[in-house]
């Protein structure tokens, strides 16, 4: 993966497959330059056995092939950048994936197109789940919540082209001043 936004797009698919109703994407950079990416869902969760295996590239719930590279690739990129990847999960409650990295590390991936990732997720999954994007750095914080958008739309699907453009512009406008000059 070229940047973190693509990793987020990839890992969020696991939450969608876990039949989540709410997927929260939190991107937080603290004053020491430690970047945390938290993907939290209220999906089916994983039992202890699967949770142990899930870091392995040879673990997957799919039957069409024997590899699952999403989590191990992200974990490797975190470790290269002086961080780590941790997953907590409870069956029936959901899963929280926390990826950390040091933005001062030369190997820390750039953030990439976060708005593009959120818009792709929402337009491909217009009915379920809801997505919440929370971004926070020393420069401020912002929240984008599809539940609010849905309320205003009142029955109009979230993946209508004009709505998608609005969401893209809206997220871009909000996050730029927060990440600008803080995270690549």
């Amino acid at each position: 993966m070229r940047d973190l936004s693509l990793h987020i797009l990839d890992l969020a698919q696991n939450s969608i497959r876990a039949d989540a109703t709410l997927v929260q994407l939190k991107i937080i950079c603290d004053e020491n330059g430690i970047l945390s990416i938290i993907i939290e869902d209220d999906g089916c969760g994983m039992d202890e056995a699967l949770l142990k295996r899930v870091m392995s590239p040879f673990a997957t719930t799919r039957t069409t092939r024997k590899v699952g590279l999403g989590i191990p690739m992200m974990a490797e990129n975190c470790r290269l950048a002086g961080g780590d990847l941790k997953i907590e999960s409870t069956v029936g409650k959901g899963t929280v994936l926390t990826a950390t990295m040091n933005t001062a590390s030369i190997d820390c991936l750039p953030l990439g197109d976060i708005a593009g990732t959120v818009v792709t997720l929402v337009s491909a999954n217009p009915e379920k789940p809801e997505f919440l994007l929370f971004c926070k750095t020393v420069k401020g914080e912002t929240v984008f919540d599809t539940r609010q958008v849905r309320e205003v739309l009142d029955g109009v699907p979230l993946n209508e082209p004009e709505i998608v453009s609005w969401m893209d512009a809206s997220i871009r406008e909000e996050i730029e001043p927060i990440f600008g000059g803080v995270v690549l």
Partner: protein
Amino acid sequence: MKSLAELQAIREKTLNRINLRKEDASETIRVVVGMATCGIAAGARPVMLSFMEETEKRGLGNVTVSQTGCIGMCRLEPMVDVYLPGQEKVTYVHVKPEMVSRIVAEHIVNGRPVEEYTIGAAEK
């Protein structure tokens, strides 16, 4: 969030079009982009965004763009399936954003698949 009042205005505009479309649901054209780890790593996200942009630009209200997982041919990603009503699906492989406008113009609008981009041409 950006002004929700603006969103409200956009909603009013889209509403009429949606109601029109509901009447001919059987005419819907589906574009499905492979969006698993392999697809994303190969560049599926810009391809999907290009399809959304292109259909919006042309005002093609009868086209839905959605995503699917990995179908086991990762070396051919990014892959896109196009379903025209009453026709067999067409699978495009190694799709790049710059190929999208031609697929939309020739296949989705005019009904002629772009043979050279299809899996049949790639696997010869």
